[in-house]
């Protein structure tokens, strides 16, 4: 009895330690970035163009660039990802081919982002002749996000009990009716949560936009979707490794990092809120 209790204590202790360590690391990183970045954050920093070879001024074009590319990513990844997931989970028969497709999707989720970048160059920049621009970069990120969106959406659909589908069919609903009115409403919160997490990951990616449209230094806003653009993660990369006066622009780099983190955090928060609200609506 005593030994059992002791083992429990040790077990829980180890688990607590794991959680503690993860939180500790997270806090350190956040503290580092916030404490070094907060000083430079001002309305001007957020809304001004960079000046003097990026040693002064703000990061407005980078914010706009990241928001625009992420919007395109969302436009591609959300409808296509949800559509694929609905097809795979609700319509596709369990054949060798669908299993292969599913396996391919899982594996695509693990492909390094730089590979997507190369693929984006070949497909969007060259073959479709969009050039290096917001559109190419957004679509590349969209492709990268798709496997995550599909997998998360399929998971959400799997969580809807089969009895909802059967119950609807037994009342004379068509297959699509049963999906539309009795499956999707309960799957969408989960689908959106997974998707937005995928999007926030895409917003922070550098490699895929590196060759497809992100520019080093453009002190003006993009004119159209076919313009090159600045982006927060790429800007951060430049400021911390490629700039001629790295130590001088350190504060700007930290400020950029802080804005990027805040943006990603806001998106994740948004996902949580959607899930919470939709869940409440459903339970009423």
């Amino acid at each position, binding site marked *: 009895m005593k030994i059992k209790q002791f083992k429990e204590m040790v077990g829980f202790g180890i688990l607590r330690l794991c959680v503690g360590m993860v939180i500790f690391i997270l806090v350190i990183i956040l503290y580092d970035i916030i404490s070094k970045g907060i000083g430079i954050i001002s309305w001007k920093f957020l809304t001004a163009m960079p000046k003097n070879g990026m040693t002064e001024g703000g990061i407005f074009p980078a914010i706009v660039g990241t928001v625009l590319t992420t919007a395109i990513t969302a436009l591609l990844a959300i409808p296509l990802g949800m559509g694929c997931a609905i097809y795979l989970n609700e319509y596709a*028969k*369990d054949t060798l081919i669908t299993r292969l497709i599913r396996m391919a999707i899982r594996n695509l989720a693990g492909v390094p982002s730089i590979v997507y970048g190369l693929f984006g160059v070949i497909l969007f920049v060259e073959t479709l002749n969009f050039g290096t621009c917001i559109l190419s970069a957004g679509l590349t990120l969209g492709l990268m996000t798709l496997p995550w969106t599909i997998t998360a959406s399929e998971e959400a659909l799997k969580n809807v*009990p089969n*009895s*909802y*589908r*059967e*119950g*609807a*069919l*037994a*009342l*004379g*609903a*068509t297959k699509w*009716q*049963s999906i539309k*009115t*009795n499956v999707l409403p*309960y799957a969408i919160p989960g689908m959106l949560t997974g998707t937005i997490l995928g999007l926030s990951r895409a917003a922070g990616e550098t490699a895929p936009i590196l060759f497809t449209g992100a520019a080093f230094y453009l002190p003006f806003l993009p004119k159209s979707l076919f313009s090159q653009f600045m982006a927060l993660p790429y800007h951060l990369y430049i400021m911390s490794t490629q700039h001629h006066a790295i130590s001088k622009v350190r504060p700007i780099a930290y400020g950029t990092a802080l804005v990027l983190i805040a943006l990603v955090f806001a998106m994740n928060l948004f996902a949580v809120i959607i899930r919470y609200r939709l869940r409440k609506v*459903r*339970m*009423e």
Partner: protein
Amino acid sequence: MENVKIRVGDFNFYYGKAQVLKNISIDIVENKVTGIIGPSGCGKSTFLRSINRMNDTIIGARAQGRIIIDGRNIYDEDVDVVEIRRKVGMVFQKSNPFPKTIFDNVAYGLMVNGVKDKYYIQDRVEKSLRDAAIWDEVKDRLNKNAFELSGGQQQRLCIARALAVEPQIILMDEPASALDPTATLKIEELIQELKKKYTIIIVTHNMQQAARISDFTVFFMLGELIEYNITNIIFTKPAKKITEDYITGRFG
């Protein structure tokens, strides 16, 4: 004269390679309650789900033979499955209300069948809830989530939901298996009421219940139809020894 509503002929059913229904032939009489009894796993649910083609949704399942409803083989290729399911309602073994309001649960079938008239829907919902003997318990909270109801109320709600689309046949898979004696009694009374309008097939594990509520009784074993007769005869002088053994609880 009694009308045959469903005529099953040489019906076989397979899950993959496993045959779970073997050469079933039976006539189901209109406006009567037909009870199905038999040991667990003998294919009762499978048989029931074959009558509204619910088994279509199972991968690898295959049906062979005829199930003729009103002169039409529902397994013919040009048959509209949706049409059949509207005509043949089903109450599942596990009650499965949707996570919607009580009202929307009952109105669901009307909605998917394209009924738009609000007043008609309201009327049908009330009527179905009354027919399912649950109206008095829910009339003041139609906009509450169906999950707030007790197990027995949920089961009656599912019955109301099935009634709302005015089917001709109702399949019930152990509708009282999870209910207390009072709720069970309510459902049994309800079934007696319903058979005036509907043809009912009900699966039950409870011998007394089968004897009480059904006009005809079918005994299944290992996917075969062993015996079928007027309930009274099955329970008093069955033709086969094995039926008698099962009914009296003399085997597993």
